[in-house]
């Protein structure tokens, strides 16, 4: 009776406490808002874009070429080498990049969680093999491994109906699933290993719970925090990875009428020496902004789900 007095603050549910901690993380809060605005821009792209993805701007005055226009009222962020509006293309590019990032992260999480929990629960040979393979794979320079695996998959003709052409979006997503699941699997494995000896798992087992139930009702809900953080990391990894591939000329096909952040940034490389700064600054800023926001959201989630963490003393 006396004990409940003055403890109203502590009687929040864990979820409420997590939410409170998340909102305390200023970077995460601001990033969530910025991210939400960007997603809204993409969702309402028919309203927010001013021109089509491959539509050239024709200026009122005849005789003037429309390519490489600096920012002005007809094109807020200027135009590119063949006179397309960079502002509109950035929204279309962001859409493709977000699709790649989010779907790669979701599929990678599904694969990673499955493999990781089996490895953690079963242990033994399978576990050893998994750790060895991921050790080596993760230690490779990202770009080298990415390019080698990309060409390897692309050359296997019998896989083409499943994975698609190597310049398709599906192929790119699959590539990042292949690279993304390993980190998540290691993480889930670690947290399963740490949790499986705990009393509440033993209690569940004593009550006759199946492995399936133990994983889905007890182990995974208790490691949801690290999984969410890893998920956000995979989103950033895939978005930046796609940009890296495009930058070096191995990205999705530019001719298909779509664009991506990576393709926009790679186009900027040719504009640097000529001094068309708007082609460089705007796409690069957007890519940085996306990466930063998702990373901050991940950081906020880490704080929110791990109360033991000493953050800022």
């Amino acid at each position, binding site marked *: 009776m006396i004990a409940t007095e003055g403890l109203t603050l502590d009687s929040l549910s864990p979820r409420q406490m997590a939410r409170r901690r998340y909102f305390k993380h200023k*970077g995460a809060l601001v990033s969530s808002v910025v991210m939400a605005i960007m997603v809204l821009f993409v969702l309402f792209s028919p309203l927010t874009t001013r021109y089509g993805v491959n539509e050239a701007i024709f200026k009122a005055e005849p005789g003037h070429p429309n390519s490489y226009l600096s920012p002005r009222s007809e094109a807020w962020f200027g135009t590119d080498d063949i006179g397309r509006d960079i502002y509109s293309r950035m929204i279309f590019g962001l859409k493709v990049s977000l699709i790649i990032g989010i779907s790669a992260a979701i599929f990678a999480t599904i694969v990673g969680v499955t493999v990781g929990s089996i490895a953690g629960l079963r242990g033994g040979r399978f576990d050893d093999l998994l750790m060895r393979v991921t*050790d*080596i794979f*993760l*230690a*490779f*320079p*990202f*770009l*080298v491994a990415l*390019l*080698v*695996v*990309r*060409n*390897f998959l*692309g*050359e*296997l003709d019998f896989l083409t109906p499943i994975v698609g052409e190597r310049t398709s979006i599906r192929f790119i997503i699959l590539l990042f699933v292949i690279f993304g699941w390993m980190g998540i699997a290691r993480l889930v494995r670690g947290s399963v290993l740490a949790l499986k000896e705990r009393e509440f798992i033993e209690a569940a087992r004593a009550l006759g719970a199946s492995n399936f139930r133990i994983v889905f009702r007890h182990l995974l809900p208790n490691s949801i925090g690290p999984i969410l953080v890893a998920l956000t990391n995979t989103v*950033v990894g895939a978005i*930046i990875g796609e*940009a*890296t591939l495009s*930058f*070096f000329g191995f990205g999705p096909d530019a001719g298909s009428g779509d664009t991506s952040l990576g393709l926009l*940034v790679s186009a*900027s*490389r040719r504009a*640097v*020496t000529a*001094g068309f*700064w708007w082609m*460089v*600054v705007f796409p*690069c800023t957007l*890519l*940085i902004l996306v*990466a*930063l926001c998702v*990373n*901050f959201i991940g*950081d906020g989630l880490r704080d929110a789900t791990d109360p033991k963490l*000493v953050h*800022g*003393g």
Partner: protein
Amino acid sequence: MARFVLRRLLWAIPTLLLVTFLVYVAIRIGTNPSEAYQRSNPRANAAKIKEYEELNNLRGNYINSYWGWLRGFLQGLFDGGESWQRSIKGRREVWPEMKDAMANSLRLGLAASFIGVTVGLGLGIFAALRPGGLRDTAVNTGAFVAFSIPPYVSAILAQLLFAVMWSRWFGHTLLPTSGVYPAGHQGFDLWLMVKHMILPVSIVAIQIIAVYARYMRASLLEVLNSDYMRTARAKGISERRVLMNHAVRNSMIPVVTVAAIDIGAILGGLIITERVFSYPGMGDFFLTAFDNGDFPQLMPFMVVIVTTVIMFNLLADVSYAWLDPRIRLD
């Protein structure tokens, strides 16, 4: 200790063989060497193609041809690359070009690592000493932002700022943005070389600083909160000694380990940065060879990468065991 190192070294050999075999198969399938050869040499007749295929053991099963490649490669280690197959474009020797590329990369990588590690560790310590304060927040946020920016984006922005916009505003370029020397330059010139390296080194170093500052800060914070720090202070050891001998030394253990494993990320950053700055290093070597599907050039490069990665993993294990007396070696 010696036995432990020796055993790990012996274990590294089968790992190395296995990984190079997998890489060999992946590259054989991925680049399709015969086709790449014909693409680079459109006028090659059937006999030439056959010769190329035979020299590179491209016929027969993978295990046999891997063995043939490995023999040639190992022989090449002792005769200065004479026994390695020549590149498909222009039949150039691989080793001299790779040697130059390695030297250039090593120079860039070492300079960036040195700056990155010292500044990063310093910033990490600096931040951890006043947790929650202004400088902690500044270092932490700064590192977080720097960490989020992909290296080629910062490289492009740096090029734009220091080369193009600077000359537009002030009438002269501040820093060169490509190569080791200006085109047509002959001989050795230290100052010119340093000037060409400033931008690429800074780009790579920023990434390293960001990673190290965060590791160091987190690690030191954990140590500072541990019981033996209180014990050390209670014994009356001066604050300076407590900090240097107890806190920083102990917090280095996880940092060193993570750092050694991180070599792949540093190499990756190097490759990307080199390409943007047209710096003739290993990254440029790899990407050019990869574009051409140049099998004889790709394999030695991959061996260098695989060896570096495995050796640094080993180094991580050994240094961890060496730095932390609580770890038993056998």
